[in-house]
């Protein structure tokens, strides 16, 4: 069914106001859109890794979630979801839950809880093939503890554990390509998206992921105004710059087949993304021009790789 923003926005809200995420936090937008992608007649169980979202969306006695929700720890959202999914299966088999009652099992974590500490349980759950969808709201660092670098932090970003200085130009390593690692797990549906436009790209991918049987993965580049150091109202511009520079290409992989879902009319230079954020400020200082060149070179290579995969 074609995406219709009006119809989407008419849906009952399933991620409510009153949560304690920072003003302008992308994670709130992600959660609302994720829950719109669950059909209104279906229920969901959300398994959340420890992080900003967890401490903000369920602070006793206030839950922002319309659906059932469980948080147990930082590194185990996928394992917890595995248990919920196993329970759902056995309860259906034993007739406790009628066959025609659909419950969608969703896991969500930040990049710390997904790329790093939660990676083992994520990988295990995907290998086992549980029927659930994992959403990563990738804000490129450990934001809940104050912007420490993670394996999702891009090269040259200044984080509190990779600060720029006389001897440093920020993080030394490139971002781990988790999306492709999840493709390598043989998942039937893996996608990258972010927050822009009518949210069509996000919605279609999220819906496809949720309604594909098996373990599916949606990686969402999710700006954090505090950690990335930009004025909160610029979120959409930053997401747009990420996709137009091809720093965060939009694509999906269905049963191993790559498909580009967005190709910029004109591929913009990486400065368009980096210059909007304080975390890359040092890259624009005289003498550090090479960082931008290196960042550009890396993005170009990755983009070419992706285009080849999408052929």
């Amino acid at each position, binding site marked *: 069914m074609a995406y219709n923003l009006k119809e989407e926005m008419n849906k009952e809200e399933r991620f*409510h106001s*009153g949560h304690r*995420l920072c003003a302008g936090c992308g994670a709130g937008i992600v959660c609302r859109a994720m829950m719109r992608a669950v059909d209104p007649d279906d229920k969901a169980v959300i398994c959340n890794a420890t992080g900003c979202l967890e401490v903000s969306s369920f602070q006793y006695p206030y*839950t922002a979630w319309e659906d059932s929700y469980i948080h147990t720890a930082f590194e185990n959202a996928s394992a917890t979801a595995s248990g919920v999914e196993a329970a759902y299966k056995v309860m259906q088999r034993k007739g406790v839950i009628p066959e025609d009652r659909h419950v969608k099992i969703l896991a969500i974590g930040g990049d710390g809880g997904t790329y790093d500490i939660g990676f083992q349980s994520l990988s295990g759950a995907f290998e086992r093939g549980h029927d659930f969808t994992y959403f990563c709201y990738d804000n490129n660092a450990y934001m809940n503890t104050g912007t420490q670098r993670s394996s999702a932090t891009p090269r040259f970003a200044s984080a509190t554990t990779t600060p720029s200085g006389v001897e440093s130009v920020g993080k030394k390593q490139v971002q781990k390509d988790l999306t492709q690692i999840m493709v390598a797990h043989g998942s039937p549906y893996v996608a990258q998206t972010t927050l822009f436009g*009518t949210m069509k790209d996000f919605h279609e991918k999220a819906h496809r992921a949720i309604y594909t049987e098996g373990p599916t993965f949606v990686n969402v580049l999710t700006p954090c105004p505090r950690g990335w150091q930009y004025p909160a109202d610029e979120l959409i511009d930053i997401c747009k710059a990420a996709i137009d520079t091809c720093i965060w290409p939009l694509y999906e992989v269905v049963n191993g087949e790559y498909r580009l879902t967005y190709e910029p009319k004109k591929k913009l230079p990486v400065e368009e993304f980096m210059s909007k954020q304080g975390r890359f400020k040092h890259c624009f200082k005289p003498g550090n021009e090479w960082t931008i060149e290196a960042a550009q070179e890396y993005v170009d290579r990755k983009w070419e790789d992706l285009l080849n995969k999408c052929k």
Partner: protein
Amino acid sequence: MITRAEEINEKIAWQDLTTGCEIYEPGTSRLTKTGEWRVRTPEWIEEKCKQCLLCAPFCPDSSIPVKDGKRGEFDYEHCKGCGICIKACPFNAISWKES
């Protein structure tokens, strides 16, 4: 045990907490009025609004209510004033309120 979130507060005794601090209702966060955090306030200029709804999905705080395909007034009890909606609007139908 007190099970309704609106009756649970930091004055109740330990015997009244829910077992394992569970909550049995949806969306109790709405009881938290995060509008108090707001430093700047967005203003909806209804006459300029084309009801394209491009603002609505971008509100991280679910504070742009939509009913029957049309947005309504901001939920100022919860809007934190991030301003994303202002930039999302192609018609300048949202602007910062003069303080």
